[in-house]
């Protein structure tokens, strides 16, 4: 069925709103949209174009669907507040970009869940599209509404709003899911039958096929959900895109007209990070680590720059300087871009002098600021969170950076981490001031006035599928007290302190840890006017508080309660393939202040991801160690005995892929 074209009604609105370039389509590199007989899919980012167009998931998934025979994908974004209000007033529904078609006309729509503050925007999206908010209210001819992304690891606060939630990497999964919908729709199958069939696809969670249990029942049964049918899986494992390392690092890209965040060519050089920071969800959910080869990456950069015309390229990943060939990659990319005024950026610097060397390789003459994330102010707390970084690492990075010409440095910390005391808070001030002293010593006297050291504090948000999932968040009042203490402890004028608003972090924690009852809270808050919660100036605290009161939900308890590791959490039926035993063990080691090494440098930590997924770590070469470090005598050995870990028995030995692409297994049997 051909999609309708809303452009004639959209165009007259564009002279009345800000930044019409958000709504135009027609960018360089955009696809034509589905052909008339194609199965049509609309990929939605639940925030404005500037944030969504830069999103890698949107780019990858639209490309994956377009590459599938007989399917066509379009993009849609949530209009900014001025446009959304005008559209409601003029009765114009949410439209896709490519065909400017009503989102409601698509066969299926996908909404990515990038962070915990996007929930009300999901409802705003559905409402603007004219799609009923709840799966049970949707009619046979409404599109299937699919969700996915980081928040899928605790899907319950979103559960009633989605027909199906996809867990893990979607490159292969999304075309599979759409294929099932297409086949069944062609056969005239009812919606209920389609949902039943979707539950059979790996990594797909269909919330309406499970009964939500009471807390008491859940603790007894070991899970908060009970499958309503025998063929519905009791536990949903994330999907992993096994071909990642060997797949082309070149990914077609649309070049926006209006300035977006990260407005540059992004080339994903590796996926996953096994450093094992205990607060970090990304570090748990993208395992195992998989590197693309230097040849693959350099060719993707060259081709990407030629096809997009961008003047900046970013080599993205969770920890780019950990790539085993990073020095070679940066040197070659530098050579390929010489003299063209092209900037090369490497996000997520490793916190040591090697990280700075890598930054220096591509910085050119302009050295803006460098950002490092010690996360905690004392060695004790850094050991608790498994941030395997010492003061010496930080100081050697500072020495190198300021000697090389950098003058500004930003240090990221978290407040409210488990076991944190006032000494740890004062430790942040002390560390930042000593870092400033080191910077001063590394800079010629006449330039010392230009040194700036800033401290940026986020509030710890406990995340599902991490060792700290059982820990509570501190209250917003306590956050303010600790930030106050930090500010008073900083005596240097050149060190400034910024912190994240604890009111929004509170909502994040509730969304992160809540069960299905939180969905009602989201809907009520949205009805009371909450939307764009991630935009500081639009955050509507009253709506959230009023909603909690009206529904009798104790949101503070959800955010702040601490549980023993045998407590069954509301997301136990979803897994990132990292075993619950590993998470509990990591939490115990945290309490003991014992660190766990990164399995891509050292011993296997028996997290369970490789055996559960039938996947392997894929490195191009051995990863370079820090100066003075030695690899464990028996690298890639499991650190704890199988008897103790239980799940370690089948842990496959990580493989080191040789530069020629073949897999040379550097394996010790795990026993």
């Amino acid at each position, binding site marked *: 069925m051909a999609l309708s074209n809303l452009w004639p009604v959209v165009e007259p609105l564009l002279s009345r709103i800000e930044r019409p*370039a958000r709504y135009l389509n027609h960018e360089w590199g955009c696809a034509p949209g589905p052909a008339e007989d194609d199965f049509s899919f609309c990929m939605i980012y639940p925030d404005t174009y500037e944030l969504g167009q830069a999103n890698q998931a949107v780019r990858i998934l639209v490309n994956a669907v377009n590459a599938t025979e007989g399917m066509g994908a379009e993009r849609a974004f949530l209009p900014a507040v001025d446009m959304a209000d005008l559209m409601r007033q003029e009765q114009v529904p949410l439209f896709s970009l490519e065909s400017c078609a009503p989102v409601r006309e698509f066969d299926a729509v996908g909404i990515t869940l990038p962070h915990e503050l996007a929930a009300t925007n999901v409802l705003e999206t559905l409402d603007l599209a004219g799609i009923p908010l709840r799966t049970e209210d949707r009619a046979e001819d409404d599109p299937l509404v699919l969700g996915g992304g980081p928040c899928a690891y605790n899907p319950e606060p979103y559960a009633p709003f989605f027909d199906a939630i996809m867990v893990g990497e979607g490159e292969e999964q999304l075309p599979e899911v759409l294929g099932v919908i297409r086949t069944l729709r062609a056969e005239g199958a009812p919606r209920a039958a389609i949902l039943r069939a979707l539950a059979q696809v790996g990594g797909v969670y269909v919330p309406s096929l499970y009964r939500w249990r009471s807390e008491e029942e859940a603790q007894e049964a070991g899970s908060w959900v009970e499958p309503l049918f025998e063929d519905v899986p009791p536990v949903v494992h994330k999907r992993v895109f096994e071909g990642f390392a060997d797949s082309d690092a070149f990914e077609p890209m649309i070049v926006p*007209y209006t*300035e977006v965040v990260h407005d540059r060519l992004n080339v994903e050089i590796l996926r996953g990070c096994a450093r094992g920071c205990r607060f970090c969800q990304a570090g748990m959910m993208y395992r195992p680590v998989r590197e693309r080869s230097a040849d693959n990456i350099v060719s993707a950069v060259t081709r990407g720059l*030629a096809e997009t015309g961008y003047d900046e390229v970013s080599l993205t990943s969770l920890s780019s300087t950990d790539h085993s060939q990073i020095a070679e990659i940066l040197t070659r990319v530098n050579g390929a871009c010489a003299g063209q005024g092209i900037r090369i950026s490497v996000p997520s610097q490793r916190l040591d002098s090697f990280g700075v060397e890598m930054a220096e390789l591509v910085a*050119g*003459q302009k050295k803006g600021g460098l950002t490092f994330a010690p996360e905690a102010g004392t060695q004790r707390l850094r050991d608790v969170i498994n941030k395997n970084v010492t003061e010496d690492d930080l100081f050697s990075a500072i020495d190198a950076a300021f000697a090389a010409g950098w003058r500004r440095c930003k240090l990221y910390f978290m407040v409210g981490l488990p076991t944190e005391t006032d000494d740890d808070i004062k430790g942040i001030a002390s560390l930042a001031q000593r870092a400033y002293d080191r910077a001063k010593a590394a800079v010629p006297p006449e330039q010392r006035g230009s040194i700036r050291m800033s401290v940026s504090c986020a509030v710890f948000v406990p995340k599902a599928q991490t060792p700290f999932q059982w820990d509570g968040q501190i209250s917003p009042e306590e956050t303010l007290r600790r930030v106050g203490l930090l500010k008073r402890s900083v005596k240097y004028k050149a060190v400034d302190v910024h912190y994240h608003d604890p009111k929004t972090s509170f909502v994040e924690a509730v969304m992160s840890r809540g069960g299905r009852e939180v969905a009602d809270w989201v809907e009520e808050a949205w009805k009371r006017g909450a939307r764009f919660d991630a935009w500081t100036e639009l955050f509507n605290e009253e709506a959230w508080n009023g909603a909690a009161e009206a529904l009798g939900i104790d949101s503070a308890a959800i955010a702040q309660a601490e549980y023993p590791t045998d407590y069954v959490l509301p997301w136990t039926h979803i897994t990132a393939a990292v075993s619950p035993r590993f998470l509990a063990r990591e939490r115990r080691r945290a309490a003991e202040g014992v660190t766990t090494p990164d399995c891509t440098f050292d011993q296997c930590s028996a997290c369970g991801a490789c055996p559960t997924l039938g996947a392997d770590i894929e490195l191009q070469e051995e990863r370079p160690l820090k100066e003075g470090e030695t690899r464990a005598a028996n690298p890639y050995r499991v650190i704890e005995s199988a008897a103790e870990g239980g799940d370690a028995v089948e842990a496959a030995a990580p493989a080191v892929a040789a530069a020629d692409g073949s897999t040379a297994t550097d394996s010790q049997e795990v026993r």
Partner: protein
Amino acid sequence: MADPRLFRLRVTFRETGRLALLSHLEVARALERAVRRANLPYAVSQGFSPHMRIAFGAALPVGVGGTAEFFDLFLTKYVAAPKALAALQAASPADLYPTDARYIEARDAAASVACPISTYEVRLSEAPTALVVPETITVVRKKKEKTLVVEEFLVGPVSHEGDTLRFTLEAKPTGSLRADAFVRELIAATVAAGHAADGLHPVNFMRVDQRAAE
């Protein structure tokens, strides 16, 4: 600015259709990216933050398109103008499309001031029976109100044929009257005088010519 070792290519382009809704900054960025895609030997500035040596003509207001827009691109190597044009065209979307390229002298006036006289053509949603050209227009600049005398900027009369207006404005070194503000006030005065119904608005607004001062 004038580096005699560089080749200065003046490229004329059209900005049409939906892309008339782009801001000047968005157009500038899009053109730079097209130059890079065209793989032309563009010059790069020296200094801390090297960037492409390119200069743009006078800005168009958001919503106003153009058929005779231009930019100057500085090249380190001579590329025959037709060849450069073809490369740019292959790297450009239809609504932001180069139509001419020719070399000009290094000493010629800068792109931003070379052509202060602009002619605009506006198609209105309906044909007014007569036009009322306001004598003065009050604009807000940097939060201050400023009253501009229209005849200081208007070159010749405002022509009116059916639903189409045509007029020419001159930009002064001291400031200029924006074409979109002028048309807005002109429509308001025309509607107020009863020469057209409420709701009169431009449906197509283009700058059709730019030239040097006499």
